[in-house]
């Protein structure tokens, strides 16, 4: 697999949300608006790239029996850094995402890539994998957030396109709406993929 494929696989072929179905907790939890999805996706991308980088660099020094705790410590450190930086410099977004930032630690996408990819591949491939997967995750979250926001609040990135007091499908900004919207999106993506094949 060349590096370009390695990068682009995260968007459609192995999209973490639509195909691998990894990290569903933040996917369903924060995507009530497009901007939340985007913010969460970028925060996760940063953690994913950094943890993939570090894991691929130290993989030979870590005894295999303690590799999972070691990976978790590495991931948790980067998550805490993201949290502190975001609270200091992006307080608005921090208030919105709140609880979900520390939960990036237990996002199985990140540990999954560390274990399945970064611990077996070299530094450059791991960085590219992290970037591709992270941006694919961001893309999926933003897409899901946009769909839910459009249907649920009648806005896109907080810009309203329906008349005031219009009735919107409130269901879509609530948890059941997340499942429904995700289900339809996955069906749609699957159809796209099968057409190509």
């Amino acid at each position, binding site marked *: 697999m060349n590096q370009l494929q390695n990068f682009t696989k995260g968007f459609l072929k192995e999209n973490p949300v639509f195909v691998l179905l990894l990290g569903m907790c933040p996917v369903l939890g924060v995507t009530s608006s497009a901007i939340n999805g985007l913010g969460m996706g970028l925060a996760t991308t940063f953690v994913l790239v950094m943890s993939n980088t570090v894991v691929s660099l130290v993989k030979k020094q870590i*005894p295999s029996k303690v590799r999972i705790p*070691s990976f978790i410590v590495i991931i948790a450190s980067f998550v805490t*850094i993201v949290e502190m930086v975001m*609270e*200091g410099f992006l307080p608005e977004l921090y*208030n919105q995402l*709140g609880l979900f930032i520390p939960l990036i630690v237990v996002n199985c996408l990140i540990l999954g890539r560390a274990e399945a990819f970064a611990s077996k591949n070299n530094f450059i491939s791991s960085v590219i994998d992290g970037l591709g997967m992270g941006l694919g995750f961001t893309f999926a979250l933003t897409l899901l957030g946009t769909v839910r926001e459009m249907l649920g609040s009648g806005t896109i990135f907080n810009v309203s396109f329906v008349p005031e007091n219009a009735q919107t499908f409130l269901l879509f900004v609530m948890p059941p709406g997340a499942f429904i919207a995700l289900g339809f999106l996955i069906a749609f993506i699957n159809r796209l993929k099968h057409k190509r094949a």
Partner: protein
Amino acid sequence: MAQQKESSLFNMLTTLVVITLISGFALAYVNQLTIKPIQQAQLSKKKDALVEVLPEFDNNPVDTRYAVFVKALGDSVEVYKAYQSGELVGTAVNAFSPDGYSGDVRIMVGFLPDGTIHAISVLEQTETPGLGTKMTEAEFIDQFADKNPKDFKMQVVKDGGQVDAITAATISSRAFCDALQMAYAVCVDSCDANTGATSTDEKTH
């Protein structure tokens, strides 16, 4: 996995110790870098809210801050006084209700000296997006402006009050009203203390 090291007690211990040490130092360093901006962000949020809910003032209300203990909550709320050329023009109360749909609802309420509500700003809420979060929007909040709680019953209509609840978010609206009532109670207490003369000076210093 062949490339990974064999595990022995010694190398497992050293690996974990080294990793935790490095991440500990890294976090301490980042913490030092971000602690100032974090405090500043929280302070400026408070200041913005004060400017929003109080009439024009020329002192720094953050300096006049004092806490009032509320028994019902087992926690204290903060009170700020605003002065314009020495005259008291408003009181802001930072009150909250633990009974939101998911977590605390924290609001800043500005009262005029006669107890009339000047404006309200929502500081913190984690209500359902699109439903409870409408409490931050003008449509809901503006109904309280210029109302005096003396003749405005701060309960949702369902409970026999005069507050139009947010559609499909009665619990959130109730929590908002609870916080508002608490703010008013605290404000009335502090205003009584004011008319009781000298006590404010002692409190502010």
